[in-house]
């Protein structure tokens, strides 16, 4: 990659975020508030205390998983907008297994539930992967449809089969204590970081960091990852090179779905300890934004998820202390996505022109 190309891949997200903040500032001004005041409250709300920083990381955690899901599939040339459905199925399977683990020691229960979460998401993602590989049906429509089917199915099971007796809330009973992930407050306090005990930050973030590393390792250091990227860049060429393209499509979808399913480690194992009907507030869809902003690389996803964690956490303060409702953040995030794709196209075009210019110059010189 040339230096200019590298600059483009870093620049377009930065430009997009800056421009989105500018647009948001104009909106804030239009309703008669001061953008500076609102943004300073936003960032104070996120960075103001150890507690709020804990929330930033906690809020980023599920987005890391769904962002990785989208990014990984994208590298295989697949558009997985089914993260929402996959995380529901993964979380439901996790809670279901978790309910049955009474008496199983944590050393066994925790890995088992992590596996169950990933397997649930992977199985749900395998469906559109298979339909694409076998029948050539585009995965976008099928993943959308499967989102709704997953919501319906999990909702049915939670309300009609697994609902905690005597409760009105559509949720399951608590999973076995041995399957619950510890909160990090205790551990951080013992090394001198004063994170309040009530902070929900939990060990799932370590799994998320592991997932970032795993996604990077699979993509860049394994034959499987090489084949997946080859299929993503040019399926026909990959086919001629002897890669089983159909198999790769299914495998890539399943790994992608597994990442989405791992949202359960934060939501079920680390936070709620139970499955709550319809708990995901667009976490799956936000994963698309995170992946785009992170340029579909695992490390990029990590940073983008943290940025969204900052916005989501700070939004609560903005909601409380100004006349600006917290939905401003949703608008900011949407504008960021639009701008990042536009900035990307514009800068890529510039890059191509520049390279074409350089190439013609080179031929002129050699002539």
């Amino acid at each position, binding site marked *: 990659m040339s230096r200019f190309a590298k600059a483009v891949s870093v620049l377009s997200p930065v430009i997009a975020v800056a421009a989105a903040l500018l647009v948001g500032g104009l*909106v804030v001004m239009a*309703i008669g508030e001061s953008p500076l005041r609102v943004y300073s409250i936003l960032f104070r709300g996120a960075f103001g205390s150890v507690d709020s920083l804990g929330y930033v990381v906690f809020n980023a955690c599920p987005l890391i998983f769904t962002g990785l899901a989208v990014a990984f599939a994208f590298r295989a040339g697949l*558009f997985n*907008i089914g993260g929402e459905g996959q995380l529901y199925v993964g979380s439901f399977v996790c809670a279901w297994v978790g309910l049955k683990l009474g008496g199983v020691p944590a050393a066994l229960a925790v890995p088992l539930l992590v596996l169950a979460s990933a397997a649930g998401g992977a199985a749900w993602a395998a469906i559109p992967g298979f*339909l694409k590989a076998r*029948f050539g*049906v*585009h995965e*976008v*429509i*099928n993943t*959308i*449809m*499967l989102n*709704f*089917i997953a919501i*319906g*199915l999990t*909702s*049915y099971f939670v309300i*009609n089969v697994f609902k905690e007796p005597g409760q009105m809330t559509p949720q399951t009973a608590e999973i076995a204590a041995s399957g619950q992930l510890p909160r990090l407050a205790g551990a951080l306090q013992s090394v001198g970081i004063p994170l309040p005990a009530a902070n929900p930050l939990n060990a799932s973030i370590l799994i998320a960091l592991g997932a970032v590393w795993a996604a990077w390792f699979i993509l860049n250091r394994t034959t499987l990852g090489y084949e997946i990227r080859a299929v993503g860049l040019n399926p026909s060429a990959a086919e001629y090179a002897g890669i089983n393209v159909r198999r790769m499509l299914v495998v890539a979808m399943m790994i992608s779905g597994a990442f989405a399913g791992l949202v359960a480690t934060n939501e079920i194992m680390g936070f709620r300890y139970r499955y709550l009907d319809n708990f995901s507030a*667009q976490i799956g*869809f936000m994963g*698309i*934004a995170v992946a*785009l902003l992170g340029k579909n690389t695992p490390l990029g996803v990590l940073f983008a998820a943290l940025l969204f964690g900052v916005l989501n956490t700070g939004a609560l303060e903005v909601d409380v202390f100004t006349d600006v*409702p917290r*939905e*401003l*953040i*949703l*608008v900011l*995030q*949407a*504008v960021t*996505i*639009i701008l990042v*794709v*536009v900035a*990307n*196209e*514009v800068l890529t075009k510039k890059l191509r022109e520049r390279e074409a210019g350089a190439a013609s110059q080179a031929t002129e010189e050699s002539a």
Partner: protein
Amino acid sequence: MFELTVFDAALRMATPLIFAALGGMFSERSGVVNIALEGILLTGAFASILVTYQTGDPWLGAFAGLLAGVLVSAIHAVVSITFKANQIVSGVAINLLAMGATQFLTWIIWGSSANSPPVEGMSYWALPESWGAVARAVNVVIGHYPPLVYIAFASVVIAHVTLWRTAFGLRLRAVGEHPEAADTLGINVHRLRYAGVLLSGALAGLGGAFLALNTHQFVKNMSAGRGFIALAAMIFGKWNPVGALFACLLFGYAEAVQMGLQGRGIPSQFVQMIPYVLTMVALVGVIGRARPPAASGKPY
């Protein structure tokens, strides 16, 4: 399950779907995937209530819904046609934008995080009774549903004729199937794609207006996945206006039945899933393969 009330409810449920599905069809026929239908419905719903609330005229409100739909789809057109960015991404972003912006504005304008105050709906069409028996007979037909229900059905006919019997329709299809060929023949690909996308915004915006005016208020996220059901209906109807109409009626019927089932021990979730499952089955080709326009989704 087959009472007249269910049929009535089914038609009302189907109406926003018909508008949005026709919209989606025009966009996809021109080669632009439009999963922003969901957000356009929502924006149309919001704009229609805002203007009806301000002016007291639901017709102006419906027109505002249409205009808002055009505006939102214009974003999609600029991003995906002019800038050639990924159409799915643009659609996802617009859906988020619509969700955030409508809730944001509901709070700013009405001070509520959930819904608008109630507004007057559209009065039904009726000829004056003094015109005698004929007028009364006509009124039985045209005065039974809100006007937009009839307009939805009329739109199906107009869309069918436009798509299959006009030069515009032929060019639109050409641009969606093979833009290079169309370009060679001197057809302005970008202009036609803009037309397809803006048309989809107008129709889906009107669908949103019906949704909200029929409820007499704006409720946050009131589109509730209907944009995606409309997308499903468009696919199930094989990208044809008449096919989409029947799919919408079927899905509207499923929705009406599902509402009737609530509290009767039959799990409503399974009825709700019908459109989504049917669409996947249709795409695989069990009941006649549903094939999208060849260049749909590809920037040109």
